């Protein structure tokens, strides 16, 4: 498996799109930090980039990369290598590359300008978010053989988690506003990794105005430190769950 990771890394590090991603991230982070006098304001503006751009690029890049490497994967399957090792090897390779891009593009500026514990939580949350969407991309990729369909599924997942989900949440809140909704809200937030990432950062930042309803409920119900640990563990589940289903499907897939 290590060899597979090595060859995937060798391949991806020559990829121009990944380089463009690093440039985009560093431009936006340096830009936002320099424009805002207050570092914590810069960080909260950067949160928007984190919650929208990072998942989008992670899921799209991974899905496209998977389909472009389909031949490579086929070639490997005909060799005496276990299918699970092949898929996990490619997964680790893509994950490491995207995490590296994230840490260079956003990690470095955040450490330079901010350097507080909040910054570290911000980066932890972004790293988890990256891995969640890489996992989801693998799931989208093994579900179909067709590249266009795969990318379509990936886009829908992103769209769902970043936009549609909040709408549904709001509708539920509105419709049942006469009832106590704390537990339901926490449950619903757990269904959306993007929301969890946001809550993780905001609980640490302690800016109640930005927390939104779900964040406030988290804060109230768990208190900030336990809330962060809770959100983090649920996100780890979000990393592990899609890739394990993808692995199951891939083991039986006809290539």
């Amino acid at each position, binding site marked *: 498996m290590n*060899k*597979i990771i090595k*060859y995937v890394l060798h*391949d991806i590090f*020559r990829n121009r799109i990944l380089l463009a991603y690093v440039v985009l991230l560093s431009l936006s982070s340096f830009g936002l930090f320099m424009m805002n006098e207050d570092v914590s304001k810069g960080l909260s503006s950067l949160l928007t980039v984190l919650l929208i751009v990072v998942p989008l690029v992670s899921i799209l890049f991974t899905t496209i990369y998977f389909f*472009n*490497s389909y*031949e*490579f994967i*086929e*070639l*490997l*399957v*005909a*060799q*005496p*290598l*276990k*299918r699970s090792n092949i898929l996990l090897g490619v997964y680790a390779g893509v994950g490491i590359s995207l995490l590296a891009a994230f840490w260079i593009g956003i990690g470095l500026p955040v450490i330079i300008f901010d350097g507080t514990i909040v910054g570290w939580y911000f980066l932890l949350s972004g790293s988890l978010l990256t891995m969640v969407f890489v996992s989801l991309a693998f799931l989208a990729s093994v579900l179909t053989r067709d590249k266009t369909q795969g990318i379509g599924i990936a886009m829908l997942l992103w769209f769902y988690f970043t936009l549609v989900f909040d709408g549904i949440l709001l509708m539920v809140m509105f419709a049942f506003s006469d009832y106590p909704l704390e537990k339901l809200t926490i449950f619903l937030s757990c269904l959306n990794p993007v929301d969890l990432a946001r809550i993780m950062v905001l609980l640490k930042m302690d800016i109640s105005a930005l927390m939104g309803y779900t964040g406030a409920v988290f804060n109230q119900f768990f208190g900030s430190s336990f809330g962060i640990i809770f959100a983090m563990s649920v996100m780890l589940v979000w990393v592990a769950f899609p890739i394990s289903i993808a692995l199951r499907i891939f083991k*039986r897939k*006809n*290539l």
Partner: protein
Amino acid sequence: MIQLEGLQKKYGKIQALKGINLTLNLNQVVALVGPNASGKTTLIKCLLGMVIPDGGRILFGGKDIKGDVQYKRRIGYMPQIGRYPDNMRMGYLFGMMKDLGKTRIQDNFDEELIAAFKLEEMFGKPMRSLSGGTRQKVSAALAFLFNPEVVILDEPTAGLDPLASEILKQKIHKEKKAGKLLIVTSHIMSEVEEIANSIAYIVEGEALFYKSISEIKSDSGEDRLGKALFHLLQK
């Protein structure tokens, strides 16, 4: 060496393989012949574990291949259309395959075809820039690289120039003499006659017959294989 027992595979509603029984032994060249979409490639992909059969089993050297990957150490495979990572250079591809397959063989790589096809000259070129024929050469060279006991070639000469296809045929002869099992699919009967000992005829996912070429000829009374087959299938 290879035993197929009631092998079945369905793609959705289409039954690609309907219970194939075949026993293929070492020291021969078997041609898989049959109409288009008769299940030849599916059969090969089942052998390689790329497609997982729905029913029946495959024994390789007496062992069921289900859930096993180690048996693939002993198989070389040349696909019908060789597709490789676009940005990878040819030399790097060979290096990578050797690196991944190190455990299969102790540095005793069979690089005869690399030399015969003069592939070294193109080692610096990325795979996407190669013509279909050159890629076929790469596929063929990779199939023999690890000196495997069983070599599966899916339409090996389609797309190869006359010289290259002659080189490949000679290689097939040589490996057969070395006691290996070579499984070849082809639609060109003159070629099959030239390289193979026996034919497994597959129609609509079933093995219609499995006979040696001389048997087919004497059964039908024809001395040209194409005609002989035609005769046999008319009955």
